């Protein structure tokens, strides 16, 4: 418990609560109305998921520039399947999800097989998929898909908790269990934390990289489904603004860019804070460009802060280690 009190998650929780209270006061309590809360959470579902999709590749020491392209492509594919080809909703969603997971798998396999830096590989797949997305929808907005799906997208439990937000939370919970308590998840973290030690412990780092990218694709598949369900329609711009938030959430959430950390809770909390920035912008009628400015600054700040913390920890452990050896001695 003590460790939690000093953790990034705790800091984020405090910042988030203070921020929220501030917003409630600034809005004269309007934010606490069921409707406002519902809207707030409605727009959180997708950011949470794309943050997690990036977090899982960061955990293995990679990155994924194609988050928006994979999600946008999958969303458009689902829309086109339903609207133009009359594919039933469940089948279309399943196909979109699988396409997305396969795109992630492909990223992983390419990184492993070619040994080319993941930055370049995902930059390339991003460009390719953006092209495919454009081929699929061109300049139109595809919206002629069944109302039932749209109803699901705007439904909410007790009128406050949007269904799509609950789906995002379920994914977050499942990912947390997967990373912490299952063999593939732990191998993934071991490969990210110390690839040499992992290899010498009999873990295949290649497999971990493929698993991470595939998971990333699968999470993006869910994000694409939620996008299709909650938007009035899909077009070529879906996914175009996902990249910065995908990095912002895990980085603010305390993910190590060198890999090895699983910060599901941190990512979710950070997504909340980013969302609050947007809410504040609306509340005070500021220019939308301010949001990007603030989020970018916060990301930069978190990275610097993280580095300061790591360095301080290193210094402390250098000083402490000898003492521990002497005092600890033989056990």
């Amino acid at each position, binding site marked *: 418990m003590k460790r939690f009190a000093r953790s990034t998650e705790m800091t984020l929780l405090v910042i988030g609560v203070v921020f929220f209270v501030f917003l409630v006061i600034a809005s004269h309590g309007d934010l606490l109305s069921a409707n406002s809360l519902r809207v707030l959470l409605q727009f959180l579902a997708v950011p949470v998921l794309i943050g997690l999709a990036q977090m899982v590749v960061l955990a293995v020491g990679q990155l994924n520039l194609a988050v928006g392209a994979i999600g946008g492509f999958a969303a458009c594919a689902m829309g086109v399947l339903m609207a133009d080809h009359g594919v039933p909703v469940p089948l279309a969603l399943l196909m979109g999800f699988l396409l997305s997971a396969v795109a992630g798998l492909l990223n992983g396999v390419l990184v492993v097989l070619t040994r080319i830096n993941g930055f370049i590989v995902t930059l390339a797949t991003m460009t390719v998929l953006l092209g495919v997305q454009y081929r699929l929808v061109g300049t139109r907005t595809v919206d002629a898909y069944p109302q039932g799906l749209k109803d699901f997208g705007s439904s909410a439990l007790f009128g406050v908790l949007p269904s799509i937000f609950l789906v995002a939370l379920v994914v977050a919970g499942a990912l947390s269990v997967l990373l912490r308590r*299952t063999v593939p998840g*732990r191998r993934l973290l071991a490969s990210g934390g110390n690839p040499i*030690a992992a290899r010498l*412990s009999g873990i295949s780092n290649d497999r971990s990289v493929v698993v991470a990218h595939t998971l990333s694709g699968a999470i993006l598949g869910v994000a694409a489904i939620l996008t299709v369900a909650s938007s009035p329609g899909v077009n070529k711009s879906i996914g175009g603004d996902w990249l910065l938030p995908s990095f912002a959430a895990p980085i603010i959430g305390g993910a190590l860019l060198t890999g*090895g950390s699983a910060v599901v809770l941190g990512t979710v909390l950070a997504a909340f804070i980013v969302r609050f920035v947007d809410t504040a912008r609306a509340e005070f009628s500021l220019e939308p460009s301010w949001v990007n400015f603030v989020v970018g600054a916060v990301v930069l700040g978190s990275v610097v802060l993280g580095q300061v913390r790591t360095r301080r920890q290193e210094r402390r452990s250098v000083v402490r280690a000898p003492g521990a050896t002497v005092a*600890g001695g033989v056990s």
Partner: protein
Amino acid sequence: MTLFQAERVDKVFPGVRALDGVTLALEAGSVHALLGENGAGKSTLIKVITGLYRPDGGRLLLDGREVSFGSPHESASAGIGVVHQERNLIPGFTVGENILLQKLPTSRGLVDRAAVRSEASRWLAELELDIDPDQPVTELSVAQAQLVEIAKALSVESRVLLLDEPTASITPNEAALLFHVVEKLKNDGRAVLFVSHKLEEVFQICDTVTVLRDGASVLMGGALSELTRDQVVDLMVGRVHEALSLPPREVDTSAAPMLELSGVSTATGHADVDLAVRPGEIVGLYGLVGAGRSELAKALLGLDRITAGEVRVRGSVVRIRNVRDALRNHKIGYVTENRKEEGVFLEQSVSRNIAVTIWDRLRKAFGYVPAKAETATVASYVDQLGIRIASPDQHAGTLSGGNQQKVSLAKWLAAQTEILIIDEPTVGIDVRTKDAFHTLIWDLAANGLAILLITSDLPEMITLADRVVVMRDHRVQGELPNDHDYDRMSQQVIRLIHAEGTTAA
């Protein structure tokens, strides 16, 4: 004339007195040898002289005036050049740029290429080297790169030059070229310190010698012309060791070997290696740093290619593909020498560090690992090895070196390996923990494990090994039964290592 002096220099690390009143004097126009076993303090002394470490006692004198260096940059500006054991050239740069790296000539803010060429040529000419300053360093041979490093060390107008094992990775022919350069430096009136493990070289090119043993200078500036090889070896090893007394342990020498290598050659340069380890036996693999022992272990685990010969495990010929294969199908474990970099996951809990090898055994449906089963297994090894932790959730990074090493060992015990390759288990570990570790390894063998122990620590080898296999230049130099008599064994081992006429390129 004495150019440089170190007077009664001390350097203390936690639990170890690395340098204990070391005195060294370097004369102009003379080559001085620095000798000592692994861990005697040679590299520490060089790091103190170049300002990488601050001495805890004593003083350094340059031209008779006391100096104190806060960084290698300061010592270089004062005229002390050093060529480290590791290569320090920047791959994308030319020879000239590498030589002048510390103070690249510029004109109007840009690197002046003509000046680089002419100035670098001057240093290359000084060493009578026929190397084009515009050539990229990646095109150089190992020996040429070594000589370029010397030119680089000279380019700071150095009068004192420290060469740390400059011949460790080059062939005898190439070494001849290097000796020629050293001779030239000497004739120009520079003071050269030559660190080497190869006694024949030392006798060939050095004038005087300082011998370090356990961080103290046991011979200060003796003239090599008045010393014999045997006298030097005696000075290097003649220590009194307070042996840890371990209970007797019988090895069944008629038992079939668990692990047997015959005529093994590898992609990393091993040739014709024969080796066998029986159940319950500890076979020590001794040699100098760079003799190819860890590389042999890694080839055995499938991390490097075996190009010829046979590896038998429990009597049948095997081809081990990777660590996973070694562990799962042959029950072979490898405790690495670099625990921090290769042995533990510093950011993860002790319990995960130990269980990493057994997740497959503990897994339930969908790969789920129940926390209870894991904690229980881990706890038994924490007990057995006496790992001091507050809780199994503690991060491995917060443990002392000795405890990290135990964690690194525990994961192989948890995996129930039967053949264990242990690489330099007690480097940087204090004396008491070291003894505890030795007892542990001894007990593992008594329980029937076949252990291949790689160590550069002679007392450790003689305390633990049943047989000692000596390696040099990626070949087996010889094998000795261990009679646990420290003096006799150390003499034999060191002689085997320094035996003449068997140097392979």
